[in-house]
């Protein structure tokens, strides 16, 4: 292995080393604060390492991983997600749960899995990354099971996720096997070259293989009708883990899926485009419709995330017709906008919750604006960004989707998007309205009145800054995305 390869692997190596250090330290000294800081430091080091050491891109490091600007962008997102969850987890578990140290081990392995996914350009690393992420998440979701007062139903959520995820993985494996049977290759890029000269039956096998892969991906991204697990798992999992599920697990999956579709030229199979369009349309409509009925904020955000992934799929589908450059740029921007917005939202919920009691019902948020203006301002900005209102990242993100959709001439999906957004407005506004109502007077131990931990405050401030910055002055990130798309 050359030194170039080692340099490019530094991020992954640092993450692995941090995992081992945290594991050994936890074995000798159970100290929540220490382990939390170690994890945070390790994640920060791996995020910032490439600021100090110039990586060589693009470079195929071992047959398994590709390091290019695209992978670095999504790896950075995953690590930022990991850091955010680490920051939220400390106040959430401290004093309410015993034996918290192993949680950070799981955060690290999950993040490692997400980074591997972002760097994957063939099926083996795709599967390894996905399982590392998935298996860590099973345990993370069920983590507070031994706390004195179990918040909701983490075990139920975890088992649900385990079973559904297992089925999805099996489907994907089968799909990969079918594709391998025809092409004899695991690499995305070499699939494209073997399209020509396929016989009728071979084409059929390829289509079925791709569709099965797609079903697995749709499960992970919770697209309708593979979304059934999402609300229950979001609701049952502890808030920091829900945040992780909603952001990191989605963004890394989107990264690898887009790479697969573009490199393997999967849009050559029109059936795939049709299937994706149906999934996207159903997600936009049903995600938003079902969100209308929710009384739990976590469930509401779960359905809203289903709708948002539906919006994102519009861009992915447009990739069949528009230049790769534009679609990669759009996906990158929308993902980043959604990522920061969701993290901001979950940070607010997490600030008001701990593993003993979560503030989850919409009625709990009544009058939040007068009880704690800072928290509710953050949440209002987050909701406006999710609704795609100007001055926020969500608006530029939606603008990207419209631009790409118009260029790809996807009129049906765009009209679904407008309808979906209109329904979406209703429940975002309802939550904002609830927060603006006078607070009910008989509040005992109002968690909003408590002092917020520094880490949570910093995270919220950073996310609000990111949302406004991307919404008002998006040029820097657009230039980054254009450059990564150009070297894809």
């Amino acid at each position: 292995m050359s030194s170039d390869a080692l340099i490019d692997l530094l991020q992954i190596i640092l993450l692995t080393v941090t995992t081992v250090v945290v594991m050994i330290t936890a074995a000798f000294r159970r100290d929540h604060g220490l382990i939390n800081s170690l994890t945070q430091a390790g994640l920060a080091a791996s995020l910032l390492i490439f600021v100090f050491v110039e990586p060589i891109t693009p470079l195929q490091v071992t047959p398994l991983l590709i390091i290019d600007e695209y992978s670095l962008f999504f790896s950075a997102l995953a690590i930022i997600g990991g850091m955010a969850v680490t920051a939220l987890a400390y106040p959430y578990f401290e004093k309410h749960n015993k034996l918290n140290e192993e949680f950070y081990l799981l955060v690290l392995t999950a993040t490692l899995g997400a980074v591997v996914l972002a760097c994957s350009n063939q099926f083996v690393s795709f599967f390894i990354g996905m399982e590392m992420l998935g298996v860590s998440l099973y345990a993370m979701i069920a983590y507070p099971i031994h706390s004195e007062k179990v918040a909701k139903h983490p075990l139920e959520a975890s088992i649900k996720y385990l079973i559904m995820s297992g089925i999805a993985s099996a489907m994907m494996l089968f799909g990969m096997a079918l594709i391998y049977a025809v092409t004899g290759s695991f690499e995305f890029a070499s699939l494209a070259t073997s399209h020509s000269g396929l016989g009728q039956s071979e084409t059929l096998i390829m289509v079925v293989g791709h569709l099965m892969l797609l079903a697995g991906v749709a499960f992970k991204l919770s697209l309708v009708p593979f979304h059934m697990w999402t609300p229950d798992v979001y609701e049952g999992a502890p808030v920091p883990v829900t945040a992780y599920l909603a952001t990191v697990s989605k963004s890394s999956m989107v990264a690898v899926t887009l790479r697969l579709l573009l490199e393997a030229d999967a849009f050559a199979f029109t059936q795939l485009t049709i299937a994706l369009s149906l999934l996207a349309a159903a997600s936009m409509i049903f995600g938003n419709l079902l969100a209308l009925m929710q009384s739990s904020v976590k469930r509401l955000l779960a359905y809203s995330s289903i709708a948002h992934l539906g919006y994102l799929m519009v861009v992915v589908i447009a990739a069949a017709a528009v230049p790769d450059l534009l679609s990669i740029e759009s996906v990158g921007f929308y993902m980043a906008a959604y990522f920061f917005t969701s993290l901001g939202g979950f940070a607010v919920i997490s600030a008001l919750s701990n593993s003993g009691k979560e503030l989850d019902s919409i009625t709990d948020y009544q009058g939040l604006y007068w009880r704690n203006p800072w928290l509710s301002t953050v949440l209002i900005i987050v909701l406006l960004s999710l609704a795609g209102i100007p001055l926020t990242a969500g608006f530029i993100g939606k603008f990207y989707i419209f631009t790409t959709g118009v260029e790809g001439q996807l009129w049906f999906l765009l009209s679904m998007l407008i309808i979906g957004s209109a329904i979406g407005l209703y429940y975002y506004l309802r939550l904002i309205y609830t927060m603006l109502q006078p607070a009910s007077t008989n509040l005992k131990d109002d968690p909003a009145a408590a002092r917020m931990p520094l880490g949570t405050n910093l995270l919220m401030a950073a996310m609000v800054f990111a949302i406004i910055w991307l919404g008002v002055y998006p040029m820097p990130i657009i230039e980054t995305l254009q450059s990564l798309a150009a070297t894809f």
Partner: protein
Amino acid sequence: MILVWLMLILFAGGIGAWLAESRGSDHPRAVALAAILLDLFLVIMMLLVPDAMGLGGDSVAELGQTGEWLVLMEADWIPRFGVSFIFGVDGLSMLLVALTVFLGLIALGSAWGEIKERSGFFYFNLLWTLAGVIGVFTALDLFLFFFFWEVMLIPMYFIIAIWGHENKEYAAMKFFIFTQVSGLLMLLCILLLVFFHFQNSGVLTFSYFELLGTDVPEALAMLTMLGFFIAFATKLPAVPVHNWLPDAHSQAPTAGSVILAGVLLKTGAYGLIRFTVPLFPDASVAFAPVAMTLGVVSILYTAKVAYAQTDLKRLIAYTSVSHMGFVLLGVYAWNAQAMQGAVMTMLAHGLSAAALFMLAGGLQHRIHTRDMDKMGGFWGVAPKLSFMAMFFTVAAVGMPGLGNFVGEFLVLLGSFQVSHTITAFAALGLVVAAVYSLIVIQKVFHGKNKNNYKMADLSAMEMMCFGLMMIGLIWMGMYPQSMLDMAEPTLRNLDVAFP
């Protein structure tokens, strides 16, 4: 730069008012007053000594524009999409900006004694709405325009949702969803237009000047135009997308109704004149008969509905729709007189509707009801208030000598050259208006004071507000030429673009 200052002062004043609340609940309104007065001062200076304020040739010539533009500025924003900050005013925008700032002052006056709770956030929203409206009237980049279109929406939502009356949640939600959905439709059509321009010329831009004259495929031109039309017609509003308005107006606090009726509705009319027709001249010609018919239906239908209301604010809201029907008619008749009439109606209705809503709000504040069946005989109790009501009602009906008359008369004169039938029906609107207006005067101010309401007459502050609006209306009625002269270059130029 002067235009940016107008907005920055309001944005900063809003934040200042919000922060000032911690020093006492009376501080925010002082900060807001200072910001609006400063803006008003700048606007008056721009009108009186344009040269000293940097209005005139240089900035306009630099951007390769001539004629009607008083001042223009351009700066990059998101070059990736060809989006830039292009602000400019011509006579039309200038009049509307002046109206906005003036009514901002009036709204502040009407909120002065009414808003006691959470005043900091209230004035923040009020000033941000005004800043958003000024942005709408001055933005000449379609992305920027859309941006401000939404910026003025959210603070207004908060004003209705927090300080509104009994059914505020429903009203605020309806207002937001109507405007937002039609806005999204407009965004889609803006993108389509930009996309066609990009296909033809290879240049990606949202600049109004570049997009003028874009060759849109005939089959799609109508659809794209409709996207713009629906968004603006919703805001105007015109039948059949008007029904957010009675709810929003009747539930909003007084200052909110004043801004809604006086200014926000005018953004719809402005959008039609500035964007819909010039950008799609051919499609607009084809669509004109439909639009004019919609205008007439708005005039007559909502006048009829207004007559059936017992809620005072709802009644005034419906009359607003009826008067804005004249604007729609005037815009699509598209000749010199009709256009001038549309502009005059916009300005005059801005004042008269604002005054009427302020009166209705004042009454509600005093007797806690808007139900006209419970009112009566107020002339004896509050003569000043009743006189003002009489004056502004008569103005709204179109009494010669006041602004509304000039506007509606010109609209009818202009549209008569286009279609006799439509004009004949529209003229009926004047008759119906007299009927519903006199009913109000009769029910509320004459007759017996059945419930023996006692109320304070108008305060000095209120008298001042009404007095200012009165002077404005009389000015418009007696010397309309001063305003027509300002708008004339704009309208003449548009006339060339749209034979």
